[in-house]
C-alpha cells in the first residue's frame, strides 16, 4: 500500500524568505501532483510531474521530482502573503491518487 508523507505539516513563513516542502512516497509511481487548497475552498491543481528530474515553475513556486529517491519538493521563493494555503502532494497509484496529509503554510507580515 502506497504511503505519502509530507513535511513539515505546518510552516510559518516570513515574507521574502525561501522555504521548501517535502513529499516522500513509499512505492514506485509514474506521476506526482501538487494541489493548493484555500480555507473552505476546493483543491486547485498546481503541478503535474511525470518523469524523473521533472521541474515545473509557476511564479514563486517550483516543484521537482526525484523518482529514484521517491521525493518531490515544492520550493517557495520570497514568500508573499497570498501563498498562505494548504498544499497537498498526491501520488498516482494504479487508478487512484493517494494524498499526503497536507502542509499548512502561513505567511507572517
Amino acid at each position, binding site marked *: 500500500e502506497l504511503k505519502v508523507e509530507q513535511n513539515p505539516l505546518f510552516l510559518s513563513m516570513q515574507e521574502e524568505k525561501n522555504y521548501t516542502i517535502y513529499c516522500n512516497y513509499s512505492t514506485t509511481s509514474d506521476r506526482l*501532483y501538487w494541489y493548493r487548497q484555500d480555507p473552505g*475552498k476546493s483543491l*486547485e*491543481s498546481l503541478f*503535474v510531474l511525470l518523469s524523473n528530474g521533472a521541474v515545473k515553475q509557476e511564479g514563486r513556486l517550483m516543484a521537482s521530482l526525484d523518482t529514484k529517491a521517491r521525493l518531490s519538493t515544492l520550493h517557495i521563493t520570497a514568500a508573499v502573503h497570498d501563498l498562505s494555503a494548504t498544499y497537498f502532494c498526491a501520488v*498516482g497509484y494504479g*487508478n*487512484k*491518487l493517494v*494524498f499526503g496529509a497536507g502542509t499548512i503554510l502561513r505567511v507572517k507580515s
Partner: protein
Amino acid sequence: DTAVSQTPKYLVTQMGNDKSIKCEQNLGHDTMYWYKQDSKKFLKIMFSYNNKELIINETVPNRFSPKSPDKAHLNLHINSLELGDSAVYFCASSQDYPAGLQGANVLTFGAGSRLTVL
C-alpha cells in the same frame, strides 16, 4: 461555467437519517471520484467510476452507495448517518490520457459538500 458542481454545499442532518450528494461535471471527463476530507484535512478516496463502471471501491461502510447514471454524473447516497460521517465530501473528475502525456489524470475538484451530522 462550473466544471464540477456538487449539491448541496452544506448539509446538516440528524443521526440515522439518509442523505444524498449530487455531482455533475461538464468537462467530458471519463472518470469521476468521491473523496472524503476529515476535520484534520486528510483526503481519502472513497469511490471512482470510469464511464459508469465502478473501478475503485475503498474500504467504506456499506451505508455509502455511489451511483453513476451516466459518465457526467456521480451521486453519493449515505444511509443511517453517523456522527463520524461528518466531513467535507469532494467530487472530482479526470480525463484519462496515455501514460507520459501532460495532463495525465489531473483531478478537477468540485467545491465540496460539508456534511454535519448531529
